[in-house]
């Protein structure tokens, strides 16, 4: 009997998710033992036409990491959806847009201009990439950037979501174990649309630091707090820590070692807009009633977009990637 097929694909992402999968060490052998790897461009050679040749839903499990940044990403998303029984939005880029999603703060032309004109860019002819280029051998094309970054679920139907930048290896291992158990008939799949490989609460739940009533007089960058109290809640020390709003599941890795949570596990269960939640939470614990002083305290957060939407911008309420007028949906 042939083994069920496994695929992993990357689109607009950094590759860290692939590393995280490899980082499960010998557990990867279980993947190999239980699955036939049909398509995994990072790990083995295969062509898109090989995938196209498969039956619909012939791939049992596809881990998709990366945002939908260009037309090719979107095309592949539709293809992988069609060929996969279970499509998992794997990691922050696929689930929330992550760092590529911050591109939604600017028009694409501006992004390209910036990328091709920075001081460290060697571009004497001031060229820009063209989607269609004529060369002696004929016409070559590259995929066009979409006008904004979408999450995978904004483009195709997704079965499960696995947050994290990247997802923690122990969570990946646990999910793989679960899928294998399901294959062996020992467990059942969670309901469609569920978040897997993560907790239901927030990072604070797993954080070992002491938490008290909060009254913040000033926000400071972590390098400006010396020394950071190793026992006390980082937010209470004035460092904007995103732990209170970020889904649990990482074992509070960053706060445990003295760095503030930056929110890579995304919003907690049921939260629609991560940044909005965090903004109201931070605003709520500012210890001042004087509007000018409050303004000053808030100015202590130097990069609000990066603080509140570093991972979630493409999936946020005001950049949800869905048309504003619902009935105009295509």
């Amino acid at each position, binding site marked *: 009997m042939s083994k069920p097929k496994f695929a992993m694909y990357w689109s607009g992402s950094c590759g860290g998710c692939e590393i995280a999968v490899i980082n499960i060490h010998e557990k990867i052998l279980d993947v190999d033992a239980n699955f036939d790897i049909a398509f995994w461009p990072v790990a083995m050679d295969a062509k898109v036409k090989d995938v196209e040749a498969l039956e619909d839903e012939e791939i049992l499990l596809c881990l998709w990491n990366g945002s939908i940044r260009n037309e090719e990403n979107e095309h592949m998303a539709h293809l992988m959806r069609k060929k996969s029984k279970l499509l998992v939005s794997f990691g922050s880029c696929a689930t929330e847009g992550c760092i590529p999603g911050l591109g939604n703060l600017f028009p694409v032309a501006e992004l390209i201009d910036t990328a091709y004109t920075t001081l460290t860019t060697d571009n004497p002819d001031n060229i820009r990439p063209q989607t269609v280029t004529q060369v002696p051998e004929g016409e070559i094309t590259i995929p066009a950037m979409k006008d904004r970054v979408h999450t995978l679920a904004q483009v195709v139907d997704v079965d499960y979501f696995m947050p994290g930048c990247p997802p923690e290896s122990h969570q990946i291992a646990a999910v793989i174990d679960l899928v294998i158990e399901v294959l062996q008939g020992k467990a059942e799949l969670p309901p469609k649309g569920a978040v897997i490989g993560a907790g239901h*609460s927030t990072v604070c*739940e797993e954080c070992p630091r002491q*938490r008290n009533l909060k009254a913040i007089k000033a926000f400071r960058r972590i390098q400006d707090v010396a020394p950071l109290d190793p026992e006390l809640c980082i937010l209470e020390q004035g460092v904007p820590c995103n*732990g209170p709003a970020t889904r649990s599941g990482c074992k509070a890795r960053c706060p445990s070692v003295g760095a503030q949570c930056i929110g890579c596990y995304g919003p907690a269960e049921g939260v629609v807009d991560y940044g909005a*939640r965090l903004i109201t939470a931070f605003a*709520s614990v500012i210890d001042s009633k004087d509007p000018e002083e409050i303004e000053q305290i808030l100015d202590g957060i130097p990069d609000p977009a990066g603080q509140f939407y570093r991972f979630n911008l493409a999936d946020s309420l005001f950049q949800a990637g869905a048309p504003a*007028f619902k*009935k105009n949906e295509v």
Partner: protein
Amino acid sequence: MSNDKTNKIGVYVCHCGTNISHTVDVAKVRDWAAEGLGSEGVVIARDYKFMCSSPGQELIEQDIKELGLDRVVVAACSPHLHELTFRNASKRAGLNPYLTELASIREQVSWVHTDKEAATEKAKAVVTGAVERVIENEPLEELKVAIHPDTLVVGGGIAGIQAALEIANAGKKVWLVEREASIGGHMAQFDKTFPTLDCAACILTPRMFEAGNHPNIELMTWSEVTNVAGYVGNFSVTIKKKPRYLKEELCTGCRICIEKCPTKVVDQGYEAGIGYRKAIYTSSAQAVPKYPVIDTENCNFFQKGTCKVCEKSCPTEAIDYEQKEEFLTVDVGNIILATGYDLFDARKVSNYGYGRLPNVFTSIEFERMCNAAGPTSGDIVLRDGKTTPKTVGIIHCVGSRDRNYNNYCSNICCMQSLKFAHLVKERTGDTVYDFYIDMRTPMKAYDEFYQRVLEEGTLFVRGKVAQVTDAARKASEEGKLMVQVEDTLIGKQRRIPVDMVILSIGMEPRHDAKETGKLFGIGCSANGWFTEKHAKLDPISTMTEGIFIAGTATGPKDIPTSVAQGSAAAARVLNMIMRGEVTLEPIKASVYQGQCSGCRICNSLCPFNAITFLEDRKVSEINPALCQGCGTCVAACPAGAISGTGFSNDQILAQIDGLLMDVTLADA
């Protein structure tokens, strides 16, 4: 968007006479609801001239009964006005009142837009939002709580005294809190009151005495409210009692300490800066309560460590330099704010020279001067304290009806100026000029008083004074104050020499009215006065149930109106006390503990102290008996673990979805 087609929603669009229909095409909104929102479960949409009228409400009741509606949306005015009306209509027809939503297409649409087409589109969006929201609404049951029979009155001026006496005389206990050392307020400073010319002290001091000695009034002067927790019927109020440096229980009010005190201080308070008081003092001999206070900033002992004359002279050993401020927490069911007004600072109008030209006086200085118990024993004299003026000019509207300062009319300045004109005439026989913009004498017996002053020979000049100066242009102007004014009745500039100028300064909101408003959870108007629940029909209630406002805290007023408001506020409080219990909206927050990470962000936010952190389980919990459904914690919870009934995330997000829906009909 809900695809639940099982709902039966009725949509009712109100014309509000022409208030809405003038700017919004009501029929189009109705058609949109009927056709565009049919897929959302709207089974009937109607429009009606006045939905809040009996026939309007009956339309809804009838549809609920005949069509079996399970949700109702009324597109009309703000929920503040008629949410209860329509919820009650639904209730009468057997539908849970919380399944009825109001879409505000008057305050938020027709009143704020002029483009009819765009306003109609917006009204459709607002209605769509309400429909999407109401689908997510859940039936809720109202709660009843008992009302504490005690009342807090803040401010011991005439309005507060009146309110306190009304309630106390009805047999209910009142806490009367005043931040000055004596009650009486501004009225206690006045000499005569217009238009009857009653002596202010003669009519006020008996009331002060009564309030100070009433068995049902707990008088707390030299005290301030520092914290207010709770809600209608059950407020818990913290009062700071500032140290008088004197044991009240020992003080007999003999005033020997005041007599012996060696330090004289210019009294910027009660005497308005034209008289003196001692470093240990009462505002006046008629002060209620009779106990003095020590002004530590000017007391020799507090500043230099020596003196103690008051302690040595006190026959009952009542002086206590070690006294500290005390905090007291009292439970009350209702609160009346009668915090009064501040006076406009005449120095701001530099062209009138107050503070620079000695013989320019403010109205409050002049009140003290006229007062027989005041610094000049009632003699009208120049700043030198002895010269009687020959000519006096009175200027109206100083700081009022002036875009540079306050744009509103201070209500009492015309009558106050006429009173001054009369008093000057009566006591000195001087020539009096009265410079006014418009004469406003509308209340009972006011215009008759104006006629009387006219007949007494006061010279009225209609025009806004440009300048008061002591710079003489010719010999005859030497030593005079020159009043430069355009006499608008003869159309000429005039330059009138006078010896004394009285500036009729206007009323301003208390400098700390905004903070007071915040403390008690009520709002202020753009000008800074406390905002009434309804400017015409509910002028002494506020948007916060159980908090009432009376007197000049809501805007400039004369004494009779302030007194009437004090009585009115008392009547409302007694009404609440007699009712015995109050119905609370069942809007409550609760924590979904599975999602709470115990981050404690919400812990210090609850104004009602309803949130506790469970140390053992590391989660926060809300006590539903204390929760008032304000929503603060719901908004603050970063994990989305707190939800509020009536304002759930599902409801609000559905409403946003509805607002953003394309509201054009295919055939439109």
